[in-house]
């Protein structure tokens, strides 16, 4: 009985401590929360300068659908505007590209580039295996990825680009769909930190 009372007494004193602590003058707390996400680069139509260059839009989907086609032995480059950052943290670049070809067994080589204002190129990373495409009438999604080797050093006038190059002879053509939403979204490059 006495032990029970003692326990109650201890609990009481403990509560006194809690109540006393309540008089510590915390008046209020304000919190603000924001989420930072990695950018998504969307493949777009022809860049102003034309040629092999096409747009790679940052967090923005092309306002119109365009189908870009090219032949084996040639390449197309999708590139951003100036990113205006001095570096990019180490990333995995994961491309999802809707494409088709007229010849089964065709292959495409892909690599990610850093470009300066004169379109001088440096390789960020290269997709290790060629991307095999089967001849179909409809566009199918091909995804491929590679990792930057550490932080990507950039100047404010640098851009990031995706180069796609046909591996075979010129009788094979490839088509890439941009600005159109398929079952798994648009042709795009997703970035994740390593």
């Amino acid at each position, binding site marked *: 009985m*006495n032990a029970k*009372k*003692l326990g*109650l*007494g*201890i609990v009481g*004193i*403990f*509560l*006194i*401590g*809690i*109540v*006393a*602590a*309540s*008089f*510590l*003058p*915390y*008046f*209020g*707390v*304000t*919190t*603000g*929360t*924001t*989420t*930072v*996400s*990695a*950018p*998504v680069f969307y493949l777009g139509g022809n860049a102003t300068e034309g040629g092999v260059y096409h747009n790679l839009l*940052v*967090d923005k989907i092309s306002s119109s659908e365009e189908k870009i086609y090219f032949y084996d032995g040639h390449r197309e480059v999708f590139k951003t505007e100036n*990113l*205006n*950052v*001095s*570096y*990019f*943290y180490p990333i995995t670049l994961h491309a999802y590209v809707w494409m088709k070809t007229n010849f089964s067994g065709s292959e495409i080589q892909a690599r990610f580039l850093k470009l300066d204002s004169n379109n001088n190129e440096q390789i960020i990373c290269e997709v290790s295996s060629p991307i095999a495409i089967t001849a179909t009438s409809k566009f199918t999604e091909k995804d491929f990825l590679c990792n930057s080797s550490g932080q990507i050093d950039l100047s404010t006038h640098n851009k990031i680009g995706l180069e796609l190059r046909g591996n075979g002879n010129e009788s094979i053509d490839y088509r890439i769909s941009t600005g159109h939403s398929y079952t798994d979204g648009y042709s795009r490059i997703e*970035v*994740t*930190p390593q």
Partner: protein
Amino acid sequence: MNKKLTHKKVNIFGKKVSVLVIASIIVLGFVAAALIPYFGIITGSVTASQGLLVDNFTYSDGPITDTYPAITSLQSATYVKPHELENEADIQAQGNLTSTCTSTDSCADVDYRAVEYFDNAGADFSGYTTPSTCDVTVSGSIQTAIDSATSGQVVCVPAGTYAEDVNVNKDITLVALTSPDSGTPVEVTGSGSTAEGIITINSAGAIVKGFLVDPTSGSFANKKAGIQDYYGNTVIDSNIVRNLAGIGTSINAIYLYNVAGASDFTVTNNLAESITNTGRGANGIMIQGTLDSVSVMYNTIKDITTDNSSGVTWDYAMAIQDTPSSGHTGGPTNLDIEYNTFDNIVTDGASESGRGFGVDEVDIFTNWADASEVTLKYNNFLNIANDLTNKDNDNHTLVAQDNYFDELAYNVNGASKDEIYPINADWMTKTTFDIAPHKRDQFATLASFPKMLAPDTFTVKTTVTA
């Protein structure tokens, strides 16, 4: 500690327990309480006893949550969220603001803190005073009274509407006998007969105090300013200038101008509002020429608007300029600009945006003002697209530390008009508060996220404690 005391035992429900044990249990209670979330169950009585509210919330109401827009790694963002402390008690409230940041990875690159809003900045007419003695009291025309006054006299102006331009051409004190924000102000509406100000100071040693300058019912035709001062050793105090509308030339609520050299200009506790122009510039306070020692304090400049659809208009809450010709002089020197509020400065139309404070040019190749002559601090910049502008072609930095800029941070140097020179601006960090009984104190929480933050969720928390 007193050994006898710690070993002393007290009787609890028939058991003897040492004071040391009781003290330990109480300490444990404190620790346990610290582990209870801040918005827990224990704090209602705190606010009641101390009488301090945050945004009208008691502590027990829980945390005040701001949700900031999400960004990507290629974006930067600065969020400034105003809050208010209110002391409902009969005693002074003193305390601290402590900010912390949490994220999965690191907050090392995030700028997070509480910042000061300058509650006492801007004009306040509640303490308006009138002279105990008047040497001359206006009856009819203000100008007639000035003409009859002699050097050093106090000329008092009773409430009423005066449809005239006023030329203060003597070292007199010209003072309104009612506050300009009262229901019965001394209102000067202008006559349209001069090309200067509705009130123009043409003498060193003059003081102009307490007037409502509003040409709505009079004339502002072809004028440059509501109140204009050519001379220096002068005071422009507690006036309201409003409803100026320009069409062809630049206009200013208050215009300090001299090209021959003058010093000691004081502009304090004035309100300039509703200044517009469709033809050229519209400015709250413009300081131009070879003026030295200019103090601009406790003024409110708000609602300055122009429409730049024609491509020839702009506006500033306040700006300094070099002389309009005669080559580069560097413009005004020793400027002290403190405790002013600049609010809602807007330019509609192409290639321009409303500007707060500007080091301006007349011509970028020949006539520009000197940014290094400016002390600019403790001012509130609100609702302004371009808070700060620097066109000092000598590449001096415009230093604007310890000011308050509202949401979206301080925006500096627009894309046009030679706005390319350095600016060093920042908010004033607030870590303590000291609020009189039954008063309020505004502050803001700042969270600034640079580009290239790795994906994460950042929560910035500011805790208010005494």
